C-alpha cells in the first residue's frame, strides 16, 4: 500500500527531526477512538512518532495548532492545510523558519457519511474502507463494493485545485492526481444562486435559526486567529451574545469577510458545525469571489501581501457611483 510507505517515511522523518533537535513538536494524525476516524497527535516524544498515520481519513487542518504552540514545529500538511500555513506566514502569525512542513500529496479525503449513504449501513458495520486509485473499496459483510472516488470524497476535496503541497521542507510522496469535480464542489452554491434573492435570505434565516453560537467554526478555522473576536466586544456591542438568527448570520457574514483571501476551502468549519449549517456554501462563495475579483488564491505565495491589506489601482470599481 502506498499510504503504508508514506507513513513509514513520515515516522522516520519525524523521529529524525525530534532526535536532531530540529523541531520541538511534531503535529500529525493518529488513529482516532471511533472507527476509521483519525485524531490530531501533538507530541515532543520521539517514541510516540510510531503512532503517526497517513490514510484516506486524515481530515483535520492541523495548521490551526501552529499559532498555539511555542517553538519549532514539524507539521503534517495536505494541500489545503499547506496553503493555510502559507497564509499564516503571509499574515505574520507564523515564521517560515519555525515550521518544518512534512507535505503529503492528498488524493482527497473520504466522507464517511457519503459512504454510509451509498452502502446503507452505519460506519460501525463496515469491515473496511480503502482507497484504490480512483476507486474506493468498501468491504461489508465480507463482500467488496467499489465506488468512484468522486462519489465518496468530501465536497471541498472535489473542488481542490492544489492537492499537492507547494511549500514544504519534505514531500513525503509523489504528486497527487486528485480528480476534481468542480460542479459537485459548488452544488449547494448553485442551488442558492438559482433562487430569487429573498428566498436566499429566507434560506439563511432558516439555517442560522439552528445556530447555537458554540463558535466551533471559529475555533477550528486556522484563518480565524484574532486574539479578540468582534463578537466579544462590549463597547460597542456589535451583536447580541445570545443566539438569535439575525446576529448569528451577521457573525458568520463578518467572519467570512475577515477570512476572505485566507480561507483555503479546507471545509473544517462545515464539518465542525454541530447543527449542520452548510457553511461551505458561504466560504466557498467568498473563495471564488476573491478569485474572480482579484485573481487571488489564499496561501499560494508566502511573500505575497494578504489580500485585504493590498490593492491595485486597477481594482474593479464598476459598482461605485
Amino acid at each position, binding site marked *: 500500500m502506498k499510504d503504508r510507505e508514506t507513513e513509514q517515511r513520515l515516522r522516520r522523518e519525524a523521529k529524525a527531526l525530534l532526535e536532531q533537535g530540529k523541531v520541538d513538536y511534531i503535529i500529525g494524525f493518529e488513529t482516532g477512538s471511533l472507527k476509521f476516524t483519525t485524531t490530531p497527535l501533538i507530541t515532543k516524544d520521539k517514541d510516540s512518532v510510531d503512532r503517526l498515520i497517513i490514510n484516506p481519513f486524515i481530515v483535520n487542518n492541523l495548521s490551526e495548532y501552529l499559532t498555539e504552540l511555542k517553538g519549532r514545529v514539524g507539521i503534517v500538511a495536505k494541500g489545503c492545510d499547506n496553503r493555510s500555513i502559507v497564509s499564516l506566514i503571509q499574515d505574520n502569525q507564523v515564521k517560515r523558519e519555525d515550521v518544518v512542513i512534512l507535505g503529503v500529496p492528498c488524493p482527497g479525503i473520504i466522507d464517511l457519511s457519503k459512504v454510509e449513504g451509498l452502502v446503507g449501513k452505519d460506519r460501525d458495520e463496515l469491515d473496511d474502507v480503502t482507497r484504490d486509485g480512483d476507486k474506493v473499496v468498501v468491504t461489508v459483510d465480507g463482500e467488496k463494493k467499489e465506488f468512484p472516488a468522486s462519489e465518496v470524497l468530501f465536497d471541498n476535496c472535489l473542488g481542490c485545485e492544489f492537492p499537492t503541497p507547494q511549500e514544504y521542507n519534505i514531500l513525503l510522496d509523489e504528486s497527487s492526481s486528485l480528480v476534481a469535480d468542480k460542479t459537485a464542489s459548488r452544488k449547494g452554491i448553485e442551488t442558492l444562486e438559482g433562487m430569487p434573492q*429573498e428566498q436566499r*435570505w429566507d434560506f439563511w434565516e432558516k439555517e442560522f435559526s439552528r445556530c447555537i453560537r458554540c463558535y466551533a467554526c471559529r475555533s477550528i478555522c486556522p484563518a480565524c486567529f484574532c486574539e479578540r473576536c468582534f463578537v466579544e466586544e462590549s463597547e460597542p456591542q456589535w451583536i447580541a451574545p445570545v443566539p438569535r438568527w439575525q446576529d448569528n448570520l451577521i457573525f458568520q457574514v463578518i467572519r467570512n*469577510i475577515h477570512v476572505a483571501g485566507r480561507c483555503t476551502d479546507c471545509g473544517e468549519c462545515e464539518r465542525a458545525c454541530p447543527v449542520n449549517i452548510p457553511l461551505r456554501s458561504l466560504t466557498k462563495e467568498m473563495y471564488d469571489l476573491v478569485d474572480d475579483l482579484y485573481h487571488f488564491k489564499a496561501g499560494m505565495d508566502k511573500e505575497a501581501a494578504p489580500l485585504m491589506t493590498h*490593492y491595485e*489601482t486597477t481594482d*474593479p470599481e464598476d459598482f461605485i*457611483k
Partner: protein
Amino acid sequence: MKQESEWEPKLLGFLCRWCSYAGADLAGTSRKKYPANIRIIKVPCSGRVDPLFILKALRLGFDGVLVSGCYPGDCHYQTGNYRARRRMAITKKFLEYVGVDPQRIQASWVSASEGGKFTEVVTEVTKGLKEIGPNKLFADER
C-alpha cells in the same frame, strides 16, 4: 401607524472627512437641495468603514448605507480609499449572494468640490431605496 405611502427610506451615509463630507458641506452652502433621507456620519477616511458598520446599520433598520470617499489617487492618507474599494466590493457582492438587495449598499467617490455630484448621488440612492421598499431583512416576520 404610518401609512405605507408616507414611508420614507432612511439612508446612513459614511462620508470621508476630507472629500465627501466637504462635498456635502458645499452642497449645503451652495443651497442645493438633496433628500433629507440621509443621516451622515463623518469618518476620517472611507477606509475607516468596517463592513460590520454596514451590517449593524441594516440590523438597526436603516434601509440603505452609502459609503463615500475621495477619488482614487486623492486619498489624504494615500491608500485608504483603495482599501475601502476592496472591502466594499466583497461586502456588496457577498451580501448580494446571501440575499441583500445590492441597492441597499452603495459607494461613491465625491470630491470636496462636487456639491452637485453629492446631491445627485443622494437623490439617486434614495430613489432606488424607495423603489425596493423598507428594509425588513432582520425582522422576524417579513
